[in-house]
């Protein structure tokens, strides 16, 4: 399952910036790691984060489902088609350096997906918007993140309605690639032109709500922040910088 899960874990109670900083640090650190051992330590760290957030089982299951196709492709591209020397694995002959590279690349993706799924599951969108408002983030940015997610289901529904309507009028979705490409216009154009025609209405609605005023908004219930959490966020930045410094230093060496 992808999305927020209510709970009372330390991650649920943490400031949203702290949870996102933890996931961001895993993302950046993953690309600094080049050895299978260090990458898998990062995967374990991401799993520990999920355990702290009380979402270990659901996050690990979803992360595995999402990274499984990537693991399959890595196996073919690196383990089967990789360079010599090769090792026997049952009836298969696998590339030894290819396996090491696949473990690094697959571990990276798994760590990133796992950490962000945990952040998504433990960060309430409402608390995130409140935290952004309290920090003086302009209305436009919070509006974009929060409101786009709300119009997506509406647009999807409209796309499905147009699809059905055009099929009723005799539009064929099958045939050659060229025929299917021709069907793209009758399906995409009404959706996009219809949405563009509503732009003025939406601008007026936002104007009425005072969105153009540009004044700093007051957060009704801002999530509490603490010195420890601020120190943790700075430490994460230092750790990521150190990881990249180490990577480039070892590359030069």
């Amino acid at each position: 399952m992808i999305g927020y899960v209510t709970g009372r874990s330390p991650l649920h109670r943490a400031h949203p910036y702290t949870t996102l900083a933890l996931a961001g640090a895993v993302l950046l650190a993953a690309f600094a790691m080049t050895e299978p051992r260090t990458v898998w330590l990062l995967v374990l760290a991401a799993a520990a984060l999920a355990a702290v957030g009380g979402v270990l089982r659901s996050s690990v299951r979803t992360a595995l489902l999402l990274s499984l196709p990537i693991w399959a492709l890595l196996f073919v591209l690196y383990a089967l088609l990789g360079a010599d020397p090769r090792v026997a694995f049952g009836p298969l002959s696998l590339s030894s350096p290819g396996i090491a590279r696949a473990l690094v690349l697959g571990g990276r993706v798994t760590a990133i997906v796992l950490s962000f799924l945990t952040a998504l599951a433990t960060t309430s969108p409402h608390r995130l918007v409140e935290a952004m408002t309290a920090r003086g983030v302009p209305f436009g940015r919070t509006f974009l993140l929060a409101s786009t997610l709300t119009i997506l289901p509406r647009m999807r529904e409209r796309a499905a309605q147009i699809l059905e309507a055009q099929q009723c009028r005799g539009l064929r979705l099958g045939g050659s690639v060229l025929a299917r490409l021709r069907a793209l216009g009758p399906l995409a154009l009404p959706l996009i032109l219809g949405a563009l025609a509503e732009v003025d209405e939406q601008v007026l609605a936002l104007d009425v709500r005072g969105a153009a005023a540009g004044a700093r908004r007051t957060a009704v219930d801002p999530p509490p922040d603490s010195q420890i959490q601020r120190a943790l966020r700075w430490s994460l930045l230092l750790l990521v910088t150190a990881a990249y410094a180490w990577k480039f230093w070892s590359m030069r060496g």
Partner: protein
Amino acid sequence: MTLRDLVLVRLGVAINLVIGQIVVALLLPIYLDSVGTILVAALVGPRAAITAGLVSQVLSAVISGNFSWLPFAVVQIVIALYASVVARLGAFRRLWTAVAAGIGLGLVAASCSAPISYFLFGGVTAGGVTVVTTVLRALGAPLGVAVASASYATDLLDKAIACGLVCVILRGLPRTLAARFPVLAR
């Protein structure tokens, strides 16, 4: 950014994320995940288009749960800048110039995405492109060549169709609506 720009950015993001639904229904071997970004670039300009591209990348990760593709956000910035420039040069006035601009965009986008794909992910990214990479690798092509060839092949087709579609959308805009976008009027 004005309120109109903000609403258009939101629309651009929604188009980027929803158009995939139509592509899947038609079983087309493309993504068209940057139509919204190109449209916003042509209607408003680079700043709004870059925002649309970046927000699309983040929200697409939020919806799919796969955050490992976030580094490809750089490609969205490049697409936004390129589309703004060709829009100002009038590339979207005719279908053939739009398709030609799309081929150029495909070259530029692939030149950005192929190194990210190769160096950060070892060439294993979205399913379709990686299947092409794997086939080329199985045929004996070096990994770097296989990744680059797969990226160029898919991006050239994808961006040419995306730009052609944006041209058709812009030509289909009623005059009263088109007049509200100064960039388009130029």
